[in-house]
């Protein structure tokens, strides 16, 4: 599974990145977690609110840090 966190260095972006990494580790999910800071990629995903969470090329949430349970749901399906 490919997980991307989109954000240009805002506090919430770091928070989401750490949170996702935690969840992946805690639940033993097989996923590569990347941070994406290239704004060109943002536009390709049509994301204009950061942070955004992209799972396997699909934008799950943009503009906020979602709840842990929500992230877990997206990562385990």
């Amino acid at each position: 599974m490919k997980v991307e966190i989109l954000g240009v260095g805002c506090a919430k972006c770091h928070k989401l990145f750490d949170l996702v990494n935690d969840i992946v580790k805690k639940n033993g999910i097989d996923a590569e977690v990347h941070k994406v800071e290239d704004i060109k990629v943002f536009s390709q995903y049509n994301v204009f609110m950061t942070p955004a969470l992209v799972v396997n090329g699909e934008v799950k949430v943009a503009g906020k840090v979602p709840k842990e349970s929500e992230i877990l749901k997206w990562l385990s399906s």
Partner: protein
Amino acid sequence: MNKEKDLVDKKSHTVQQLEMEVQPEETANSLPILDDSLLEKVRYLFSGTVLLAAWWLVYENLLGFSRFVTYHMLPLHEGTHLGATTEFFIYEVPKVLLLLTLIVFFVGIIRSFFTPERTRRILAGSRESIGHVLAGLLGVVTPFCSCSAVPLFMGFLTAGVPLGVTFSFLVTAPMVNEVALVLLFGLFGWKVATLYMVTGLFVALTTGVIIGRLRMERHLEDWVLELTADKPATAQLEIEEERVSWEERVRFGIDAVKDIVLKVWPYVTIGIAVGAGIHGYVPENFLAGVMGKDAWWAVPVAVLIGVPMYSNAAGIIPVVQALLSKGAAFGTVLAFMMAVIAISTPEAIILRKVLKLRLIAVFIGVVTVGIIAVGYLFNIVL
């Protein structure tokens, strides 16, 4: 972190109470039957009214409370420096935090109506002249921080929002917002808050109109230009909007309170502590010579110092407090505050990824000149 939370919990009872009222109901409401949802609404309305009444009661009695604590519970006497300082602090901190909680909550609810998607649809669909005014007003109520400036900027442009209108939004959003307005209202009164809002909007709209008139689209980075050219505006605008219930809007407001008040309260406390210290100890007009009305160069110097600095509205309040109380002229301080909040070095660096140098220079130049003008205006008028 925990210690911080404890402190906040004590300070803003309203936040906690609101949470307790709402949390258990959230899950129960997953299957809305008519009667249930009506009942739910009545309960919300009822608990809302009770909370509001409680808020008002606390707010109204703060002065008495601070005097009681200062002169009866603490061994301080009226008329002393330490007494005046303590009374000021104990009165102002809860006052400003209470105001902030209330306003941030309601603005949070208003914001749930203006998601960025909807904002850009409104802006893309309106004429340019009206667009500027709308962009400014939407900038006040749209959730936004300067770190997400660039993605949002791109989103607006690709949706077909004109460049000038996008800039009107970009300048207003961080500079004129509810946190800045509440702090100014709480500490300096409604006149100052209103003046700040009106002139802030004026600077932002002027910047937007000028950049729009200069037709600077070709000074966007090339890849941005390509992107805006080959994506037709309509293709972007079909993002589905889910229906948001009132419960969710209330939750949105509570989240905003948690988010913003938790982030802002240390600055407010420090700011008021500084203000309280000055209130009790430092002689007035200490700074009048350097930053007073007579020093004509004070405004541009303050603005030029403020432009590269990075802070939000809350972080700058302690400085504003300190400068004002020491006799600095109001226009000078206001201009400094606007300069710090409106643009910053980190924002300019991120913007550089999508704008060519020339456009950034024009942007910063126009905003700077506008803010300097506001500073002089207030020094003359007030």
